[in-house]
């Protein structure tokens, strides 16, 4: 006997989210904050229809599951979250997808490098990304566009400080000569 009929299966959508906050955010705090703003906005009835769950959350990026018919409502309730655990925060929806796999691959950065506040950014016409390592004049760069290293089998782009000289007029990319 089947436990559930395939035609009656719940259809789901997955949000890939990024939490922007002034301090570290714990998963339990995020869950209770989302639950509170959901109940406040839609009540118990709407919350049951939304079927919003946290699938994973690593302190910055996460995956949320919800009902495929209630995407706009869930997006709105995530937008009403303004603090998590007493810390000012904002939830950004990076993308939405039908499977966990696709949501992770498309919208969650796969690099081992956590885009952290101490990392230097480089933004010049062709290349943009975060500096991973600086050794003398050699610079390893984790590019924003993963396609840039395709075919070479490497994860980072190799640059030198000569490439980045004279770019110090750009507020976007703090490339101050290194």
């Amino acid at each position: 006997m089947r436990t559930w009929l395939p035609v009656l299966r719940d259809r789901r959508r997955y949000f890939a989210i990024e939490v922007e906050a002034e301090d570290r955010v714990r998963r339990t705090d995020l869950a209770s904050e989302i639950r509170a703003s959901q109940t406040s906005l839609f009540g118990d009835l709407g919350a049951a229809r939304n079927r919003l769950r946290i699938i994973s959350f690593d302190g910055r990026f996460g995956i949320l599951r919800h009902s495929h018919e209630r995407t706009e409502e869930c997006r709105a309730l995530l937008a009403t979250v303004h603090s998590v655990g007493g810390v000012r925060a904002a939830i950004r929806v990076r993308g939405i997808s039908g499977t966990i796999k696709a949501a992770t691959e498309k919208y969650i950065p796969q690099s081992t490098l956590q885009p952290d506040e101490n990392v230097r950014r480089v933004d010049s016409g062709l290349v943009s990304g975060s500096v991973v390592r600086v050794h003398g004049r050699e610079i390893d760069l984790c590019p924003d566009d993963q396609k840039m290293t395709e075919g070479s089998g490497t994860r980072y782009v190799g640059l030198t400080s000569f490439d980045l000289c004279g770019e110090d007029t750009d507020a976007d990319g703090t490339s101050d000569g290194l």
Partner: protein
Amino acid sequence: MKYYECNLHTLPDGSDSPSRMALAAKKLGYSGIIISNHSPAGVAFRLDAAELVRGIEVAIGAEIVATDQRGLHARAASLRDRADFLAVHGGDERINRAACEDPNVDMLAHPHGGRTGIGVAAAKAAKDNQVAICLDLGPMISLRGGSRVRWMEMVRRDLDLIDKFDLSLMISTSPRSHLDLRSPRDLVALASLLGVERERALKALALPGSIVELNRRRWASVGVEVL
């Protein structure tokens, strides 16, 4: 369409520098921001740095805070030539109405701060003077419970009025820090809960950009442009 966040407050009114706001807004998918500080146009921390951020338009507007009608009209007339975009800090019933009666004003910002909304007389005046009404979603994000219920009731009533008189609508969250910013799609989702359809919300987000473009042209007199 090009979406604009039309009522940003930066240092010293808010807590972020203009360039930080510009970067955050660009990341969220905006094409431009309008910095409208309460202090007169031009008084903001490091505006020059914001212009270096590529891929986003930074317009300098002003938001007038007035206590009486005469003061408001005088400030609007004096700021008109200097600011790309002129907003009025509403909330008080008299100020809401005075703002709607002034053709120099582009937008009435947060008209739902006080007890009443815009009201019929002000709506009529706004139609005649082409003053846009800003649907400020900030309270929807920051308030909870009874106060948010009252705010929603008031907004619902005013949206009917805006429909009735076919006024132009703008949507903003009046951000004071990058954490108050919400992406255009989030704003559309929030507005749809208040009964603003998707198409209309998208149009409301794109409207400030076209107003700024119009204001930046140099008009010699009504309908005559200096090329």
